[in-house]
């Protein structure tokens, strides 16, 4: 078949070709095995066979999931692992399971369960990228899924502190093990990247690059300098264009910002005036409708209600204890 191989993916940001683990894994693997792959940023997992990205398309064939795609590519004689000994293949399998057992829950936690990251980073990012109306559905669904993972793995509620510490401890151990295994080598198995390198890159790159607000795990990763160098190495060698675009974009964004600040010479004065007008209008409205009076009455009312509630609760408590 001479039809092009295509891949539908989540978009990239922060110098990454995609911010999604699974998309990145396939993309890196394709680069390593020199597959001529066309990527399309769809940012829409709705019309896919399994309801998730990436989707690999070759002619009429549509495949979902890394191991299936890798198997298909191997069939087409594309593989990053041709140079590995059986023992190295075994090790590759073992380490990829280490990542999925220990690091995957942590990434889910950092992206979706951690309140700050979810509200300030993950939800806005996905809400912005997804087309309407999916942007109202998917972020919440991913959050629920991640919480379900936490609850199933730890058998306590997701907001239990046990979950956070447990997940982080496991992930840190995993990162340390990876760092030790990699040592000062270029890639995990010598000077050529393999499947394992694709997987590790996919796990680590978003964790390293995304601007997390709660960055405990990110900081641990940054402390493992050989892993950081590993990620940068792959980004520079295989995704150089994305990286350059991002750098260029960043610098170009910074410049107009300065311009825009200069564009309005009386910014402070205008801000002050706007605030003043708003305050006056609001206060005037409050007085005109008697809002202030009403609110003070309500306070008293509230107290009464509270008293009643307390009475009630005391009574109920008693009947509970009497059993």
């Amino acid at each position, binding site marked *: 078949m001479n039809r092009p191989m295509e891949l539908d993916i989540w978009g990239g940001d922060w110098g990454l070709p995609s911010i999604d683990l699974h998309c990145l894994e396939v993309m890196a693997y394709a680069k390593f095995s020199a597959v001529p792959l066309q990527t399309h940023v769809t940012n829409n997992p709705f019309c896919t066979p399994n309801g998730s990205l990436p989707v690999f398309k070759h002619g009429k064939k549509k495949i979902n999931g890394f191991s299936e795609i890798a198997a298909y590519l191997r069939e087409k004689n594309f593989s990053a692992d041709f140079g590995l000994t059986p023992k190295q293949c075994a090790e590759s399998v073992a380490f990829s399971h280490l990542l999925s057992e220990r690091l995957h829950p942590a990434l889910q936690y950092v992206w979706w369960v951690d309140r700050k990251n979810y509200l300030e980073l993950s939800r806005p990012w996905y809400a912005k990228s997804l087309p309407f109306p999916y942007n109202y559905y998917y972020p919440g669904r991913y959050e629920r899924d991640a919480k379900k993972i936490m609850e199933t793995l730890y058998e306590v*509620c997701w907001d239990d502190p046990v979950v956070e510490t447990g997940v982080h401890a496991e992930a840190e151990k995993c990162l340390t093990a990876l760092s030790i295994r990699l040592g000062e080598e270029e890639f995990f198995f010598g000077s050529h990247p393999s499947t394992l390198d694709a997987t590790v890159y996919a796990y680590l790159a978003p964790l390293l690059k995304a601007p997390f607000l709660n960055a405990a795990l990110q900081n641990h990763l940054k402390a493992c300098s050989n892993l950081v160098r590993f990620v940068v190495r792959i980004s520079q060698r295989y995704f150089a264009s994305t990286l350059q675009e991002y750098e260029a974009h960043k610098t170009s964004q910074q410049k107009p910002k300065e311009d825009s600040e200069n564009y309005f010479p009386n910014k402070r004065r205008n801000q002050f005036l706007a605030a003043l007008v708003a305050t006056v209008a609001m206060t005037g409205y409050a007085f005109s409708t008697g809002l202030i009076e009403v609110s003070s009455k309500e306070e008293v009312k509230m107290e009464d209600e509270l008293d009643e*509630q307390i009475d*009630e*609760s*005391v*009574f*109920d*408590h*008693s*009947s*509970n*204890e*009497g059993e």
Partner: protein
Amino acid sequence: MGTVHAKQSDAPRSEKLKTHPNPNEDSHHRSQKKRVTLEGIRARVDKIHVDGLGRTKDDIIIETVRELFKAQDFQDVIVGAHTVRSRLEALGCFRNIGVFIDTSSGPDSTPEGLEVTFHVHELKRIVGGVNTLVGNNEGSVVVGLRMPNLFGRGEKLATEYSYGSKRTTGFNVCLSKPLRGKMHSVFSTSIFQHGSEWPPSGYKQIERGLLFDLGFSSAPNVKHNLQWEASWRDLSCLTRSAAFEVREQSGPTLKSSLRHILCVDRRDQPIFPSTGAYFQLTTEFAGLGGNVGFFKNDLTLQGNWPVLNDVVLQGAIQAGFLKRLTNDQIVSICDQFFLGGPLNLRGFDFRGAGPHSDGFAVGADAYWATAVHLYSPLPFLSTRGAFADLFRTHIFVNAGNVGNFNLGDDYHENWKILSKDFRMAYGLGLALRLGQMARVELNYCIPVQIRRGDQPVSGVQFGIGVNFL
């Protein structure tokens, strides 16, 4: 001829009426100031009207009011009308029941004939409520829904659902049906789930089950409940540090038990009685299926004697005994007896007396506790208002013991075993009545007999509950 309007609220007791006919009604009736014995006036009930019936079935109303036709004189009519009224009330289908008695008129009327009219208001089909509840270190919202008089014969479906701040859910669905007959028996079925936490013992449990209950009274004030309960209890440790003895108990158990509750209440009021006695005996036999087996008795006895004006002496005793049946049937920690806390043994922490393991109460097979109180109204308050009636001061001595006693046939020996290492505390305090059900106590306690492992509270202790010793 005027009408006699039976007093709507606070129905006088029938015995009182018999001995002291209400002079008020009397004078009304004859419009004379002279005393008249109602027994002398011959009367016959010709007709009974019940106004305001909607979905309530006729047969059950006829059965309830039929007795009134047997009245021979006017006294009988009034007393009978009251009884019928209270029985209508007990059906739980109506609110505001009014009674009117008039002479009968019309073609079928007899000379001494009367017509009795009951004005009733049926309850709404669905009554609901939402309230908040604080207890067991958890706040929860309780949604209740009642459907009184479901099929027109006093059947009632009550459901309650609670959702707690710690994500515990509980519910109770109860369908009850009054049965016909002299015993005033009520049959009810409930399905329930409720979770509870017991920090002093370090465990929590979720109990789900099915309960059939037949309640009846064999004599006035003597109530029986015959129950069969199947409950699935899921015990788990509350914290990681819970004692191993408690940890060993965790896991699900299934209890299927028969229970008989006998309750005789001859007190004048439940919370601050001034006279009368109270007796309750619960007998439970578990082991009809399931993997829990025991035979359990629990007894409560209370006596009240007025000493001086408004000063009441109260003596109470509680005792319980659990017997294990076979070795392969489990007795769980939640079936056992505990002692201590403001509700039974003041001066000790909740479950603070008796066997402990690593600081967690593990319970025992038998216990007894006894208390003597001297209650008096608030001092320096000469006015006897409704407010002052909410309070009592008391001084008390309570003692008790809990353990796995090995009792024989020798009473002296048994007494020695039971009284060995008993716990005792005395003190004084203030009690407050909450409604007609519960009470709050604030006591200053001085424990005098403490054993190793106990958790005494010397000083101020606060208690809230329904059944106080």
